[in-house]
């Protein structure tokens, strides 16, 4: 359609710094996702939350413009196929609502696979939810995934090819890796850098195990990925679980 003076934004935009994101009325919610909903891309997940919010009948704050969307911010996008054990998102409301009411209405309305684990009123001021994310923890599971950890060189760079829109580039996984340990032969636990400044995608960690620890490619491709938690850094430099 050539004759649209203002092309409409196709997707709800992440709106952490919109003027109508009233701090005192923003609900910070912890949520999990499993099963079929884990295969949703980030934008589809946002759409599911948007429609759920609309169905709850809760008083929502909307973006301005001719295609209004509820104002919401996800701490860190979830890749396709990744389960979430305890992720965090902010939802802006237009009236004072008790966190219990929010949790109850959302869980009564969300599709199978998505659950709100808890909610509280987001703290006023301070940095945005997205900027607060510094680290993320994952459990990766697949045949031999845990056993491969011991074969990974203890030090030195771990280059892997990261495919992007403009070809692939080489990324060193090592500085992005905070902690890595085998749970058992077929699973590992990892704490990695996450957020807008530095971020390690779990598939790149698996690729490092393929390239540097002899994990079969199939095992990496088919591994189950669960993001267990997100972390921020406290004033004293301590690691604090985002919630």
């Amino acid at each position, binding site marked *: *359609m*050539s*004759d*649209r*003076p*203002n092309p*409409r934004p196709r997707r709800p935009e992440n709106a952490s710094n919109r003027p109508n994101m009233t701090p005192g009325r923003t609900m910070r919610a912890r949520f999990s996702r499993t099963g*079929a*909903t884990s295969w*949703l891309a980030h934008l*589809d997940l946002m*759409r*599911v939350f*948007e*429609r*759920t*919010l*609309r*169905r709850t*009948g809760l008083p*929502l704050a*909307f973006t301005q413009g*001719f*295609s*209004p*969307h509820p104002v919401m911010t996800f701490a860190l996008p979830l890749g396709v196929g990744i389960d979430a054990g305890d992720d965090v998102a902010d939802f802006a409301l237009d009236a004072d609502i008790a966190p219990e009411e929010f949790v109850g209405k959302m869980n009564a309305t969300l*599709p199978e696979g998505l659950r709100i684990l808890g909610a509280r009123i987001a703290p006023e001021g301070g940095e945005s939810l997205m900027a607060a994310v510094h680290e993320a923890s994952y459990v990766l599971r697949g045949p031999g995934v845990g056993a491969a950890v011991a074969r990974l060189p203890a030090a030195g760079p771990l280059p892997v090819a990261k495919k992007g829109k403009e070809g692939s580039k080489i990324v060193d996984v090592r500085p992005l890796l905070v902690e890595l340990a085998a749970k058992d032969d077929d699973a590992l636990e990892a704490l990695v850098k996450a957020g807008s400044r530095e971020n390690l995608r779990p598939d790149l960690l698996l690729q490092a195990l393929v390239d540097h620890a002899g994990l079969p490619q199939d095992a990496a491709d088919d591994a189950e990925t669960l993001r267990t938690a997100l972390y921020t850094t406290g004033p004293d430099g301590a690691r604090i679980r985002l919630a």
Partner: protein
Amino acid sequence: MRREGIPLFSLESKTPLREFDFVGFTLQYELSFPNVLNMIDLGGIPVRTADRADDDPFVIAGGPCAYNVEPMADFFDLVVMGEGEEVLGELLDLHGAWKKAGKGPRTEFLARAARIPGIYVPSFYEVSYNEDGTVASVAPNRPEASARVLKRIVLDLDAAGYPEDDLVPNLETVHDRVFLELFRGCIRGCRFCQAGYIYRPVRERSPESLRKQALAATAATGYEEVGLLSLSTSDYTGLAELTAHLVDDLDGQRVNLSLPSLRVDSVSLELMEKASKVRKSGLTFAPEAGTQRLRDVVNKGVEEGDLMRSMKLAFEGGWNGAKLYFMLGLPTETMEDVEGIAALAHQIEALWRTIPRELRLRPLDLNISTSMFVPKPFTAFQWEPQESMDGMRAKQQHLRNLLRSKAIRYQWHDTHQSFFEAVLARGDRRLGAVLEEGVKRGRRFDSWDDHFRLDAWLGIMAEQGLDPAFYANRKRPYDETTPWDHIDVGVERDFLVRESRAAEAGETTTNCREGCAGCGATVFGGGVCFE
């Protein structure tokens, strides 16, 4: 799926198709027939009704292409003619009772179902052919089957209800919004248009019930957009009343109202402005033919003056283009009519130059699109031959040469697909074996032009001694028995003959609101015929 031994299953409960009591298909488009066969087979159900066992599901169909379902007659246990709201309930009640009574042979159930008005059981009819290949007769071979099956309709749409708590997909899909069905049928009577005949008579929903439905449905689904559905939105008598309230109602809920293409006049432009605030959606027009003579032949009540006035209004209102739909190969069309399409486009281009400069913020963008005329059953043109593919390609080429302007984009539709669509649309039961063989040889997704292979289909037809031109390109006499003569959509054959003759004479027919043309749809006892 075949390699892994996974049967086709339902989306929500992941149940294999063969475990259902019924498997239903909506037949929207002839070229989807091969996909339907492939789905039945993938679902682990024998493709032919004759091969199904008592515990196999009943495979049923409905939709616009069900009115001439003959090419698919061997594959459906039963077909619902017309609107499903009431019939489906009756069918399911019957099935429930039959199941409770311990079931029995499937023909037993079909015999009972055949007594429900509107239900057609193809296997209960015997087709015989003349030596020249035309149909001699289609006659019931069981007492339960009636000689003619009259379609079912719902007279009071407000009472019929409408699903408000629709399934909401987790992924973006087509038609991803709440739909309000304004009315069924169309008053206009364009002679090529199957929808215009088979959905008669026009029945409207009231603005109040639509408004209520819009609010209930958006609350239940969380959709952020509401669309309006009908064959010709501008003909909805309650449009002004509905939209006056709806725009404000939905605005309060931060829900968008998306408007379909409307007949362009000052009222509708204002409405479009209001509904979409700043956003200007594309304008579409469907003059269908390039000259007034041919537009009269097809009874398309659009005059050149109307079109130019609309375009002028639109240009002055800030639009810089439109999309115009035409058909090539309409009965009696000559090269002069084709040139008329180009002439119209150039006239619009000239009009654009007369618009004050300050209103022409962007360059003109005119989109001309042609599809191929496909004669359809239950229309005034059901006896007409389709033009040969060579003839249609020559017309496309000619038009391409005439539309060389930078401001005009010309899009055309593949002749191969239209040709096979014409074969199937007026086909008979002998085409069933062709479809079955095609699917066996891997034909599918034929409505996608990159998957469609006409030569493969023509090869199979040749092997089976069938001539595609017999179906597509032959002028059929009025007194020939058609493969669909035993189906009754309420529009009388005599009326279609009258319309066909009027077309030949270039005479137009009034629309249902200007004056009833006596098509026969009064048999349903309601709708626009009794307003």
